[in-house]
Protein backbone atom coordinates (compact mmCIF):
# COMPACT_ATOMS: atom_id res chain seq x y z
CA UNK A 1 0.00 0.00 0.00
CA UNK A 2 1.61 3.27 -1.11
CA UNK A 3 1.97 6.39 0.92
CA UNK A 4 -0.69 8.13 -1.10
CA UNK A 5 -3.24 5.41 -0.48
CA UNK A 6 -2.34 5.22 3.16
CA UNK A 7 -2.82 8.96 3.51
CA UNK A 8 -6.13 8.85 1.70
CA UNK A 9 -7.31 5.97 3.82
CA UNK A 10 -6.26 7.78 6.97
CA UNK A 11 -8.05 10.94 5.92
CA UNK A 12 -11.16 9.01 5.09
CA UNK A 13 -11.09 7.11 8.35
CA UNK A 14 -10.53 10.24 10.41
CA UNK A 15 -13.29 12.10 8.62
CA UNK A 16 -15.75 9.29 9.09
CA UNK A 17 -14.77 9.02 12.72
CA UNK A 18 -15.13 12.73 13.21
CA UNK A 19 -18.47 12.73 11.46
CA UNK A 20 -19.81 9.99 13.65
CA UNK A 21 -18.52 11.44 16.88
CA UNK A 22 -18.99 15.11 16.50
CA UNK A 23 -21.72 17.53 15.53
CA UNK A 24 -23.46 20.86 15.80
CA UNK A 25 -23.15 24.42 17.17
CA UNK A 26 -21.77 27.82 16.31
CA UNK A 27 -18.77 29.09 14.42
CA UNK A 28 -16.06 31.70 14.73
CA UNK A 29 -16.88 35.23 15.75
CA UNK A 30 -14.28 37.17 17.65
CA UNK A 31 -15.54 40.71 18.21
CA UNK A 32 -12.41 41.35 20.28
CA UNK A 33 -10.29 41.32 17.12
CA UNK A 34 -10.74 45.07 17.31
CA UNK A 35 -7.55 44.96 19.38
CA UNK A 36 -5.69 44.42 16.13
CA UNK A 37 -7.47 47.32 14.47
CA UNK A 38 -9.94 45.08 12.66
CA UNK A 39 -13.15 46.94 13.34
CA UNK A 40 -15.14 45.22 10.62
CA UNK A 41 -15.66 41.55 10.01
CA UNK A 42 -15.60 40.94 6.30
CA UNK A 43 -11.90 40.92 5.70
CA UNK A 44 -11.81 37.71 7.72
CA UNK A 45 -15.33 36.33 7.31
CA UNK A 46 -17.52 35.72 4.31
CA UNK A 47 -20.46 37.01 6.33
CA UNK A 48 -20.06 40.80 6.32
CA UNK A 49 -21.36 41.02 9.86
CA UNK A 50 -19.13 38.26 11.17
CA UNK A 51 -19.11 34.59 12.14
CA UNK A 52 -18.90 31.56 9.97
CA UNK A 53 -16.61 30.57 7.19
CA UNK A 54 -13.26 32.36 7.07
CA UNK A 55 -11.84 34.09 4.06
CA UNK A 56 -8.37 33.27 2.87
CA UNK A 57 -7.14 36.37 4.67
CA UNK A 58 -9.01 35.37 7.82
CA UNK A 59 -7.29 32.01 7.79
CA UNK A 60 -3.96 33.76 7.48
CA UNK A 61 -4.76 36.08 10.36
CA UNK A 62 -5.71 33.09 12.49
CA UNK A 63 -2.14 31.96 12.16
CA UNK A 64 -0.48 35.36 12.31
CA UNK A 65 -2.28 37.16 15.11
CA UNK A 66 -4.58 34.71 16.85
CA UNK A 67 -2.64 31.51 17.40
CA UNK A 68 0.17 31.23 19.87
CA UNK A 69 3.39 31.81 17.94
CA UNK A 70 6.24 29.41 18.43
CA UNK A 71 8.62 31.23 16.12
CA UNK A 72 9.00 35.00 16.02
CA UNK A 73 7.46 36.77 13.02
CA UNK A 74 7.15 33.51 11.12
CA UNK A 75 5.17 33.59 7.92
CA UNK A 76 2.60 30.82 8.25
CA UNK A 77 2.77 30.01 4.57
CA UNK A 78 -0.02 27.61 3.73
CA UNK A 79 -0.51 26.35 7.26
CA UNK A 80 -3.71 28.29 7.66
CA UNK A 81 -5.19 27.12 4.40
CA UNK A 82 -7.94 24.55 4.05
CA UNK A 83 -6.73 21.20 5.26
CA UNK A 84 -3.41 22.78 6.28
CA UNK A 85 -2.73 23.63 2.67
CA UNK A 86 -2.70 20.00 1.58
CA UNK A 87 -4.28 21.12 -1.65
CA UNK A 88 -4.81 24.51 -3.21
CA UNK A 89 -8.33 25.76 -3.60
CA UNK A 90 -9.18 28.16 -6.38
CA UNK A 91 -9.56 31.75 -5.22
CA UNK A 92 -13.29 31.60 -5.86
CA UNK A 93 -13.85 28.74 -3.43
CA UNK A 94 -13.78 28.75 0.35
CA UNK A 95 -14.14 25.52 2.28
CA UNK A 96 -14.13 24.97 6.02
CA UNK A 97 -14.82 21.96 8.19
CA UNK A 98 -15.53 22.71 11.85
CA UNK A 99 -15.69 20.35 14.79
CA UNK A 100 -16.35 21.46 18.35
CA UNK A 101 -16.90 19.40 21.46
CA UNK A 102 -17.87 20.44 24.96
CA UNK A 103 -17.43 18.58 28.20
CA UNK A 104 -19.48 20.21 30.92
CA UNK A 105 -19.89 19.62 34.61
CA UNK A 106 -23.03 21.17 35.99
CA UNK A 107 -23.35 21.73 39.72
CA UNK A 108 -26.83 22.99 40.60
CA UNK A 109 -27.01 24.51 44.06
CA UNK A 110 -27.94 21.72 46.44
CA UNK A 111 -27.72 18.96 43.85
CA UNK A 112 -24.88 16.67 42.91
CA UNK A 113 -22.54 17.52 40.05
CA UNK A 114 -23.36 15.97 36.72
CA UNK A 115 -21.10 15.40 33.77
CA UNK A 116 -22.21 16.07 30.23
CA UNK A 117 -20.70 15.86 26.83
CA UNK A 118 -22.04 17.88 23.94
CA UNK A 119 -21.06 17.57 20.36
CA UNK A 120 -21.42 21.21 19.54
CA UNK A 121 -20.54 21.40 15.92
CA UNK A 122 -19.70 19.35 12.91
CA UNK A 123 -20.26 21.64 10.00
CA UNK A 124 -18.97 21.76 6.50
CA UNK A 125 -19.14 25.29 5.11
CA UNK A 126 -18.46 26.52 1.63
CA UNK A 127 -18.60 29.65 -0.43
CA UNK A 128 -18.29 29.95 -4.17
CA UNK A 129 -17.77 33.44 -5.53
CA UNK A 130 -18.11 33.99 -9.24
CA UNK A 131 -17.57 37.62 -10.11
CA UNK A 132 -19.94 39.50 -7.88
CA UNK A 133 -22.19 36.52 -7.19
CA UNK A 134 -21.80 34.34 -4.16
CA UNK A 135 -23.25 31.05 -3.02
CA UNK A 136 -22.63 30.31 0.63
CA UNK A 137 -23.84 27.63 2.98
CA UNK A 138 -23.11 25.19 5.73
CA UNK A 139 -24.35 21.71 6.42
CA UNK A 140 -23.73 19.65 9.49
CA UNK A 141 -24.82 16.74 11.58
CA UNK A 142 -26.06 16.57 15.13
CA UNK A 143 -26.38 13.32 17.07
CA UNK A 144 -29.85 12.29 18.13
CA UNK A 145 -29.99 12.66 21.87
CA UNK A 146 -28.49 14.37 24.80
CA UNK A 147 -27.10 11.02 25.85
CA UNK A 148 -25.08 10.95 22.68
CA UNK A 149 -24.03 14.53 23.02
CA UNK A 150 -26.60 15.83 20.59
CA UNK A 151 -30.19 16.90 20.51
CA UNK A 152 -29.30 20.50 19.84
CA UNK A 153 -29.46 22.81 16.87
CA UNK A 154 -33.18 22.13 16.60
CA UNK A 155 -34.03 25.43 14.99
CA UNK A 156 -31.49 24.87 12.23
CA UNK A 157 -32.67 21.39 11.26
CA UNK A 158 -33.12 20.36 7.68
CA UNK A 159 -34.41 16.94 8.66
CA UNK A 160 -37.02 16.41 11.31
CA UNK A 161 -35.82 16.52 14.88
CA UNK A 162 -35.68 14.76 17.24
CA UNK A 163 -35.01 11.52 15.42
CA UNK A 164 -33.40 8.23 16.21
CA UNK A 165 -30.22 8.87 14.30
CA UNK A 166 -29.64 12.55 14.64
CA UNK A 167 -30.35 15.28 12.19
CA UNK A 168 -28.85 17.23 9.35
CA UNK A 169 -28.56 20.89 10.23
CA UNK A 170 -27.88 23.93 8.09
CA UNK A 171 -27.31 27.16 9.91
CA UNK A 172 -26.71 29.36 6.92
CA UNK A 173 -27.30 29.16 3.20
CA UNK A 174 -27.63 32.16 0.98
CA UNK A 175 -27.12 33.70 -2.39
CA UNK A 176 -25.37 37.03 -2.47
CA UNK A 177 -24.54 39.87 -4.80
CA UNK A 178 -21.62 42.19 -4.10
CA UNK A 179 -22.44 45.76 -5.00
CA UNK A 180 -20.36 48.92 -5.19
CA UNK A 181 -16.96 49.95 -6.45
CA UNK A 182 -15.19 48.23 -3.58
CA UNK A 183 -17.96 45.66 -3.09
CA UNK A 184 -18.87 47.53 0.05
CA UNK A 185 -22.50 46.40 -0.19
CA UNK A 186 -23.68 42.81 -0.06
CA UNK A 187 -27.25 41.89 -0.90
CA UNK A 188 -28.21 38.45 0.34
CA UNK A 189 -31.20 36.14 0.36
CA UNK A 190 -31.48 32.89 2.22
CA UNK A 191 -31.04 31.73 5.79
CA UNK A 192 -28.93 34.37 7.48
CA UNK A 193 -27.57 35.39 10.84
CA UNK A 194 -29.87 38.05 12.20
CA UNK A 195 -28.08 41.42 12.18
CA UNK A 196 -28.36 42.54 15.78
CA UNK A 197 -25.97 43.36 18.60
CA UNK A 198 -22.48 41.99 19.13
CA UNK A 199 -21.98 38.88 17.06
CA UNK A 200 -20.21 36.58 19.41
CA UNK A 201 -19.31 32.94 19.61
CA UNK A 202 -20.90 32.58 23.03
CA UNK A 203 -24.42 31.83 21.87
CA UNK A 204 -25.83 31.24 25.37
CA UNK A 205 -25.20 34.86 26.38
CA UNK A 206 -28.54 36.34 27.44
CA UNK A 207 -28.22 39.23 25.01
CA UNK A 208 -28.13 36.69 22.20
CA UNK A 209 -30.43 33.96 23.48
CA UNK A 210 -33.25 36.19 24.76
CA UNK A 211 -33.30 38.21 21.57
CA UNK A 212 -32.99 35.00 19.51
CA UNK A 213 -30.10 36.41 17.54
CA UNK A 214 -27.38 33.90 18.31
CA UNK A 215 -25.15 32.41 15.66
CA UNK A 216 -25.95 28.87 16.70
CA UNK A 217 -29.53 28.46 15.58
CA UNK A 218 -30.86 32.02 15.67
CA UNK A 219 -30.71 32.43 11.92
CA UNK A 220 -33.81 33.41 9.99
CA UNK A 221 -34.78 33.21 6.37
CA UNK A 222 -34.91 36.57 4.71
CA UNK A 223 -33.23 39.21 2.63
CA UNK A 224 -30.50 41.51 3.88
CA UNK A 225 -28.33 44.36 2.70
CA UNK A 226 -25.00 44.87 4.44
CA UNK A 227 -22.64 47.81 4.15
CA UNK A 228 -19.06 47.96 5.32
CA UNK A 229 -17.19 51.24 5.11
CA UNK A 230 -14.12 52.59 6.82
CA UNK A 231 -16.04 54.35 9.57
CA UNK A 232 -19.47 52.80 9.39
CA UNK A 233 -20.83 49.33 8.89
CA UNK A 234 -24.27 47.89 9.25
CA UNK A 235 -26.88 45.52 7.96
CA UNK A 236 -30.62 45.59 7.57
CA UNK A 237 -32.68 42.45 7.15
CA UNK A 238 -36.24 41.67 6.21
CA UNK A 239 -37.07 38.59 8.29
CA UNK A 240 -39.40 36.19 6.53
CA UNK A 241 -39.39 33.53 9.23
CA UNK A 242 -37.42 30.47 10.22
CA UNK A 243 -38.58 27.74 7.87
CA UNK A 244 -36.76 25.11 9.91
CA UNK A 245 -39.58 25.28 12.44
CA UNK A 246 -43.24 24.72 11.91
CA UNK A 247 -46.18 25.23 11.94
CA UNK A 248 -46.09 28.60 10.29
CA UNK A 249 -47.83 30.28 13.23
CA UNK A 250 -44.61 30.16 15.25
CA UNK A 251 -42.47 31.82 12.58
CA UNK A 252 -41.47 35.35 13.38
CA UNK A 253 -41.59 37.92 10.60
CA UNK A 254 -40.42 41.48 10.60
CA UNK A 255 -37.04 43.11 10.42
CA UNK A 256 -33.82 43.83 12.19
CA UNK A 257 -30.88 46.12 11.67
CA UNK A 258 -27.69 47.25 13.25
CA UNK A 259 -25.25 50.06 12.61
CA UNK A 260 -21.78 50.40 14.05
CA UNK A 261 -19.60 53.50 13.99
CA UNK A 262 -15.84 53.31 14.37
CA UNK A 263 -14.46 56.70 15.39
CA UNK A 264 -11.05 55.07 15.71
CA UNK A 265 -9.59 51.70 14.90
CA UNK A 266 -9.87 50.75 18.57
CA UNK A 267 -13.40 51.91 19.31
CA UNK A 268 -16.70 50.77 17.84
CA UNK A 269 -20.13 51.88 19.01
CA UNK A 270 -23.33 50.41 17.66
CA UNK A 271 -27.09 50.33 17.87
CA UNK A 272 -29.54 47.61 16.88
CA UNK A 273 -33.26 47.08 16.56
CA UNK A 274 -35.45 44.08 15.95
CA UNK A 275 -39.21 43.95 15.48
CA UNK A 276 -41.02 40.73 14.70
CA UNK A 277 -44.51 39.34 14.76
CA UNK A 278 -45.72 35.77 15.12
CA UNK A 279 -49.24 34.42 15.21
CA UNK A 280 -48.35 32.23 18.18
CA UNK A 281 -45.74 33.09 20.80
CA UNK A 282 -43.09 30.58 21.81
CA UNK A 283 -44.45 29.73 25.22
CA UNK A 284 -42.09 26.77 25.19
CA UNK A 285 -39.21 29.25 25.42
CA UNK A 286 -40.89 31.60 27.86
CA UNK A 287 -43.61 30.05 30.01
CA UNK A 288 -45.13 33.42 30.87
CA UNK A 289 -46.21 33.87 27.26
CA UNK A 290 -49.54 32.65 26.03
CA UNK A 291 -50.16 30.79 22.80
CA UNK A 292 -51.48 33.85 21.04
CA UNK A 293 -50.14 36.51 18.66
CA UNK A 294 -47.09 38.47 19.71
CA UNK A 295 -45.07 41.45 18.59
CA UNK A 296 -41.52 41.26 19.88
CA UNK A 297 -39.28 44.32 19.97
CA UNK A 298 -35.65 44.48 21.05
CA UNK A 299 -33.32 47.46 20.99
CA UNK A 300 -29.65 47.40 21.82
CA UNK A 301 -26.64 49.62 22.25
CA UNK A 302 -23.21 48.09 22.16
CA UNK A 303 -19.58 49.05 22.31
CA UNK A 304 -16.28 47.37 21.56
CA UNK A 305 -13.30 49.19 22.97
CA UNK A 306 -9.63 48.31 23.09
CA UNK A 307 -7.89 50.81 25.37
CA UNK A 308 -4.68 48.79 25.08
CA UNK A 309 -3.78 45.99 22.75
CA UNK A 310 -3.99 43.42 25.51
CA UNK A 311 -7.44 44.48 26.61
CA UNK A 312 -10.79 44.56 24.88
CA UNK A 313 -14.06 45.49 26.54
CA UNK A 314 -17.33 44.41 24.97
CA UNK A 315 -20.58 45.78 26.30
CA UNK A 316 -24.19 45.49 25.22
CA UNK A 317 -27.43 46.51 26.83
CA UNK A 318 -30.80 45.52 25.44
CA UNK A 319 -34.29 46.80 26.02
CA UNK A 320 -36.83 43.98 25.58
CA UNK A 321 -40.52 44.35 24.97
CA UNK A 322 -43.36 42.23 23.73
CA UNK A 323 -46.99 42.94 23.12
CA UNK A 324 -48.55 40.30 25.33
CA UNK A 325 -50.09 41.16 28.66
CA UNK A 326 -48.65 39.27 31.58
CA UNK A 327 -50.93 36.51 32.85
CA UNK A 328 -52.26 36.28 36.35
CA UNK A 329 -52.11 39.77 37.75
CA UNK A 330 -49.50 41.46 35.67
CA UNK A 331 -50.05 45.13 35.20
CA UNK A 332 -48.22 45.65 31.97
CA UNK A 333 -46.73 44.11 28.91
CA UNK A 334 -43.51 42.20 29.13
CA UNK A 335 -40.84 44.83 29.42
CA UNK A 336 -37.33 43.90 30.38
CA UNK A 337 -33.62 44.21 29.85
CA UNK A 338 -30.54 42.16 29.25
CA UNK A 339 -26.94 43.20 29.43
CA UNK A 340 -23.48 41.87 28.80
CA UNK A 341 -20.11 43.11 29.91
CA UNK A 342 -17.20 41.04 28.70
CA UNK A 343 -13.50 41.63 29.11
CA UNK A 344 -10.91 39.87 27.01
CA UNK A 345 -7.35 40.05 28.25
CA UNK A 346 -4.72 38.69 25.91
CA UNK A 347 -2.01 37.49 28.24
CA UNK A 348 0.19 36.46 25.37
CA UNK A 349 -0.69 36.01 21.74
CA UNK A 350 -2.89 32.94 21.66
CA UNK A 351 -3.79 32.98 25.36
CA UNK A 352 -6.89 34.87 26.41
CA UNK A 353 -8.33 35.40 29.83
CA UNK A 354 -12.05 36.06 29.66
CA UNK A 355 -14.49 37.45 32.16
CA UNK A 356 -18.12 38.31 31.64
CA UNK A 357 -21.10 39.47 33.57
CA UNK A 358 -24.68 39.11 32.39
CA UNK A 359 -27.89 40.48 33.76
CA UNK A 360 -31.40 39.61 32.68
CA UNK A 361 -34.76 40.74 33.96
CA UNK A 362 -37.69 40.19 31.66
CA UNK A 363 -40.20 42.18 33.70
CA UNK A 364 -38.53 45.16 35.26
CA UNK A 365 -41.76 47.17 35.38
CA UNK A 366 -43.62 44.66 37.51
CA UNK A 367 -44.04 44.65 41.26
CA UNK A 368 -44.57 40.93 41.59
CA UNK A 369 -42.70 37.66 41.28
CA UNK A 370 -42.12 38.18 37.56
CA UNK A 371 -39.67 40.91 38.45
CA UNK A 372 -36.70 38.66 39.00
CA UNK A 373 -33.15 39.44 38.07
CA UNK A 374 -30.88 36.71 36.80
CA UNK A 375 -27.15 37.25 36.96
CA UNK A 376 -24.28 35.23 35.62
CA UNK A 377 -20.56 35.53 36.05
CA UNK A 378 -18.16 33.93 33.62
CA UNK A 379 -14.46 33.36 33.79
CA UNK A 380 -12.49 31.54 31.19
CA UNK A 381 -9.19 30.76 29.60
CA UNK A 382 -8.89 30.33 25.86
CA UNK A 383 -5.79 28.90 24.31
CA UNK A 384 -5.22 28.91 20.57
CA UNK A 385 -2.39 26.49 20.96
CA UNK A 386 -1.86 25.00 17.53
CA UNK A 387 -2.79 25.67 13.92
CA UNK A 388 -6.54 25.22 13.45
CA UNK A 389 -7.13 24.13 17.05
CA UNK A 390 -8.17 25.91 20.20
CA UNK A 391 -8.97 24.83 23.71
CA UNK A 392 -11.19 26.71 26.11
CA UNK A 393 -12.13 26.28 29.75
CA UNK A 394 -14.92 28.31 31.36
CA UNK A 395 -16.38 28.57 34.80
CA UNK A 396 -19.90 29.96 34.96
CA UNK A 397 -22.02 30.84 37.93
CA UNK A 398 -25.66 31.63 37.24
CA UNK A 399 -28.55 32.53 39.47
CA UNK A 400 -30.91 31.13 36.85
CA UNK A 401 -31.56 31.26 33.16
CA UNK A 402 -33.43 33.34 30.65
CA UNK A 403 -36.02 32.54 27.97
CA UNK A 404 -34.37 30.97 24.98
CA UNK A 405 -31.23 30.03 26.84
CA UNK A 406 -30.61 26.63 28.31
CA UNK A 407 -32.97 26.33 31.28
CA UNK A 408 -30.71 25.87 34.25
CA UNK A 409 -31.08 26.21 37.97
CA UNK A 410 -28.96 28.46 40.14
CA UNK A 411 -25.54 26.95 40.35
CA UNK A 412 -22.26 26.70 38.61
CA UNK A 413 -20.79 24.91 35.67
CA UNK A 414 -17.34 24.04 34.47
CA UNK A 415 -16.95 23.79 30.72
CA UNK A 416 -14.08 22.54 28.59
CA UNK A 417 -14.26 22.88 24.83
CA UNK A 418 -12.01 21.89 22.04
CA UNK A 419 -12.50 23.24 18.57
CA UNK A 420 -10.72 22.27 15.43
CA UNK A 421 -11.21 23.23 11.83
CA UNK A 422 -9.79 22.34 8.49
Amino acid at each position, binding site marked *: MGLVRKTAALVAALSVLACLMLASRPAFAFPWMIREGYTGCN*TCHADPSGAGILTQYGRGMEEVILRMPYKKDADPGKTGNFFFGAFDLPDQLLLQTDARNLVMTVIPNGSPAQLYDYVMQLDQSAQLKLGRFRMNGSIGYTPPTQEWGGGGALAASLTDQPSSWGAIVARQYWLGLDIGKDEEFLLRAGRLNVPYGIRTLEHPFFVRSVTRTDSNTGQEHGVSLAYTGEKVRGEVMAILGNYAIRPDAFRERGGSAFVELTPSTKVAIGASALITHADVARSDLEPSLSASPIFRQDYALHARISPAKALVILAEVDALYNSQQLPGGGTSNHFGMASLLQVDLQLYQGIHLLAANEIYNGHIAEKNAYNTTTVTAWGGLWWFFAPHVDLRVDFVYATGSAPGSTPTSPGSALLAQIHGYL
Partner: protein
Amino acid sequence: MNRARVLVTTLSFLSALAVTADAKLTRTGTPAVTFHASGPAGMNIVGTTSDLDVDDQGAKIVIKVPLKSLATGIALRDDHMRNKYLQIATYPNAELTLDRATVHFPNGDTASSGDATGSMAIHGKTKNVSFHYNITRVTGTLHVGGTVHLDIRDYGIDIPSYLGVTVKPEIGVEVQFTATE
Protein backbone atom coordinates in the same frame (compact mmCIF):
# COMPACT_ATOMS: atom_id res chain seq x y z
CA MET B 1 10.36 112.81 14.25
CA ASN B 2 7.42 110.65 13.26
CA ARG B 3 9.18 109.55 10.11
CA ALA B 4 12.20 108.54 12.17
CA ARG B 5 9.98 106.52 14.52
CA VAL B 6 8.28 104.76 11.64
CA LEU B 7 11.61 103.97 10.09
CA VAL B 8 13.04 102.60 13.32
CA THR B 9 9.95 100.54 13.96
CA THR B 10 9.95 99.15 10.45
CA LEU B 11 13.60 98.28 10.60
CA SER B 12 13.16 96.65 13.97
CA PHE B 13 10.23 94.59 12.67
CA LEU B 14 12.09 93.49 9.57
CA SER B 15 15.08 92.71 11.70
CA ALA B 16 12.95 90.60 14.01
CA LEU B 17 11.50 88.76 11.04
CA ALA B 18 14.94 88.10 9.71
CA VAL B 19 16.05 86.76 13.07
CA THR B 20 12.99 84.56 13.24
CA ALA B 21 13.54 83.34 9.74
CA ASP B 22 17.14 82.57 10.36
CA ALA B 23 16.62 80.88 13.73
CA LYS B 24 17.27 77.17 13.39
CA LEU B 25 14.58 74.73 14.22
CA THR B 26 15.50 72.08 16.74
CA ARG B 27 13.09 69.25 17.37
CA THR B 28 12.09 68.61 20.96
CA GLY B 29 9.83 66.15 22.72
CA THR B 30 8.43 62.98 21.21
CA PRO B 31 7.11 63.28 17.70
CA ALA B 32 4.28 61.20 16.29
CA VAL B 33 4.06 60.03 12.73
CA THR B 34 0.98 58.12 11.68
CA PHE B 35 -0.11 56.72 8.35
CA HIS B 36 -3.58 55.53 7.49
CA ALA B 37 -4.12 52.95 4.81
CA SER B 38 -7.29 51.18 3.90
CA GLY B 39 -8.25 47.95 2.26
CA PRO B 40 -11.37 46.55 0.71
CA ALA B 41 -14.68 47.14 2.45
CA GLY B 42 -13.67 48.98 5.56
CA MET B 43 -10.29 47.52 6.33
CA ASN B 44 -8.10 50.03 8.16
CA ILE B 45 -4.38 49.88 8.76
CA VAL B 46 -2.69 52.41 10.98
CA GLY B 47 1.08 52.60 11.20
CA THR B 48 3.00 54.72 13.66
CA THR B 49 6.51 55.72 14.58
CA SER B 50 7.98 58.25 16.93
CA ASP B 51 11.14 58.65 14.90
CA LEU B 52 11.40 62.01 13.18
CA ASP B 53 14.28 64.38 12.58
CA VAL B 54 14.16 68.01 11.55
CA ASP B 55 17.14 69.26 9.57
CA ASP B 56 16.94 73.01 9.29
CA GLN B 57 19.23 74.05 6.48
CA GLY B 58 18.22 77.68 6.49
CA ALA B 59 16.35 78.29 3.30
CA LYS B 60 15.18 74.70 3.29
CA ILE B 61 13.85 72.48 5.98
CA VAL B 62 14.09 68.70 5.70
CA ILE B 63 11.76 66.56 7.76
CA LYS B 64 13.11 63.06 7.83
CA VAL B 65 11.22 59.98 9.08
CA PRO B 66 13.31 56.84 9.57
CA LEU B 67 11.12 53.92 8.52
CA LYS B 68 12.76 51.12 10.43
CA SER B 69 10.55 51.59 13.46
CA LEU B 70 7.32 52.12 11.54
CA ALA B 71 4.85 49.63 13.04
CA THR B 72 1.26 48.60 12.39
CA GLY B 73 0.74 46.33 15.37
CA ILE B 74 1.18 43.05 13.53
CA ALA B 75 4.76 41.83 13.37
CA LEU B 76 4.46 39.90 10.14
CA ARG B 77 2.70 42.79 8.44
CA ASP B 78 5.46 45.13 9.65
CA ASP B 79 8.06 42.80 8.28
CA HIS B 80 6.35 42.76 4.88
CA MET B 81 5.89 46.53 4.94
CA ARG B 82 9.48 47.36 5.81
CA ASN B 83 11.32 44.77 3.80
CA LYS B 84 9.09 43.72 0.93
CA TYR B 85 7.45 47.02 0.07
CA LEU B 86 9.42 49.96 1.53
CA GLN B 87 12.73 48.09 1.22
CA ILE B 88 14.22 50.02 4.10
CA ALA B 89 17.62 48.39 3.78
CA THR B 90 18.04 50.41 0.58
CA TYR B 91 15.69 53.30 1.29
CA PRO B 92 15.72 53.83 5.06
CA ASN B 93 13.95 57.20 5.24
CA ALA B 94 11.03 59.19 4.00
CA GLU B 95 11.98 62.84 3.56
CA LEU B 96 9.94 65.94 2.99
CA THR B 97 11.97 68.92 1.82
CA LEU B 98 10.30 72.29 1.84
CA ASP B 99 11.29 75.88 1.30
CA ARG B 100 11.16 77.81 4.52
CA ALA B 101 9.49 80.65 2.69
CA THR B 102 6.49 78.49 1.82
CA VAL B 103 5.54 78.09 5.47
CA HIS B 104 4.30 80.91 7.62
CA PHE B 105 5.69 80.73 11.16
CA PRO B 106 3.58 82.47 13.77
CA ASN B 107 4.94 85.44 15.64
CA GLY B 108 4.62 85.40 19.36
CA ASP B 109 2.19 82.98 20.99
CA THR B 110 -0.11 82.70 18.04
CA ALA B 111 -0.97 80.08 15.46
CA SER B 112 -0.74 79.77 11.74
CA SER B 113 -1.90 77.24 9.22
CA GLY B 114 -1.99 76.80 5.52
CA ASP B 115 -1.20 74.66 2.54
CA ALA B 116 2.26 74.41 1.07
CA THR B 117 4.25 72.30 -1.32
CA GLY B 118 7.44 70.37 -0.93
CA SER B 119 9.23 67.41 -2.38
CA MET B 120 8.72 63.98 -0.88
CA ALA B 121 11.36 61.32 -1.28
CA ILE B 122 10.39 57.73 -0.52
CA HIS B 123 11.70 54.47 -1.84
CA GLY B 124 14.29 56.24 -3.95
CA LYS B 125 11.81 58.40 -5.82
CA THR B 126 11.02 62.06 -5.30
CA LYS B 127 7.75 63.76 -6.09
CA ASN B 128 6.30 67.17 -5.36
CA VAL B 129 3.45 67.05 -2.87
CA SER B 130 0.99 69.45 -1.35
CA PHE B 131 0.59 69.33 2.38
CA HIS B 132 -1.41 71.09 5.03
CA TYR B 133 0.27 72.42 8.12
CA ASN B 134 -0.64 74.11 11.36
CA ILE B 135 1.84 75.65 13.73
CA THR B 136 1.15 76.98 17.20
CA ARG B 137 3.74 78.82 19.20
CA VAL B 138 3.40 78.42 22.96
CA THR B 139 5.99 80.14 25.12
CA GLY B 140 8.60 79.80 22.47
CA THR B 141 7.89 76.20 21.53
CA LEU B 142 6.46 75.46 18.13
CA HIS B 143 3.81 72.76 18.00
CA VAL B 144 3.82 71.60 14.42
CA GLY B 145 1.24 69.40 12.76
CA GLY B 146 0.94 68.41 9.15
CA THR B 147 -0.98 66.09 6.86
CA VAL B 148 -0.18 64.85 3.42
CA HIS B 149 -1.84 62.41 1.04
CA LEU B 150 0.35 60.10 -0.96
CA ASP B 151 -0.08 57.49 -3.64
CA ILE B 152 2.51 54.80 -3.10
CA ARG B 153 2.50 54.01 -6.81
CA ASP B 154 4.16 57.42 -7.37
CA TYR B 155 7.15 56.13 -5.46
CA GLY B 156 7.49 52.81 -7.20
CA ILE B 157 6.22 50.86 -4.21
CA ASP B 158 4.32 47.71 -5.03
CA ILE B 159 0.72 47.73 -3.86
CA PRO B 160 0.61 45.50 -0.78
CA SER B 161 -1.47 42.39 -1.16
CA TYR B 162 -1.74 39.43 1.17
CA LEU B 163 -3.99 36.40 0.96
CA GLY B 164 -6.42 38.02 -1.39
CA VAL B 165 -6.65 41.36 0.41
CA THR B 166 -5.12 44.30 -1.45
CA VAL B 167 -4.45 47.59 0.23
CA LYS B 168 -5.51 50.78 -1.54
CA PRO B 169 -2.51 52.73 -2.88
CA GLU B 170 -3.68 56.06 -1.49
CA ILE B 171 -2.53 56.69 2.06
CA GLY B 172 -2.77 59.58 4.47
CA VAL B 173 0.13 60.67 6.66
CA GLU B 174 -0.08 62.77 9.81
CA VAL B 175 2.95 64.28 11.51
CA GLN B 176 3.16 66.04 14.84
CA PHE B 177 6.26 67.34 16.58
CA THR B 178 7.49 70.16 18.70
CA ALA B 179 10.51 72.33 18.02
CA THR B 180 12.31 75.34 19.36
CA GLU B 181 14.12 78.05 17.48
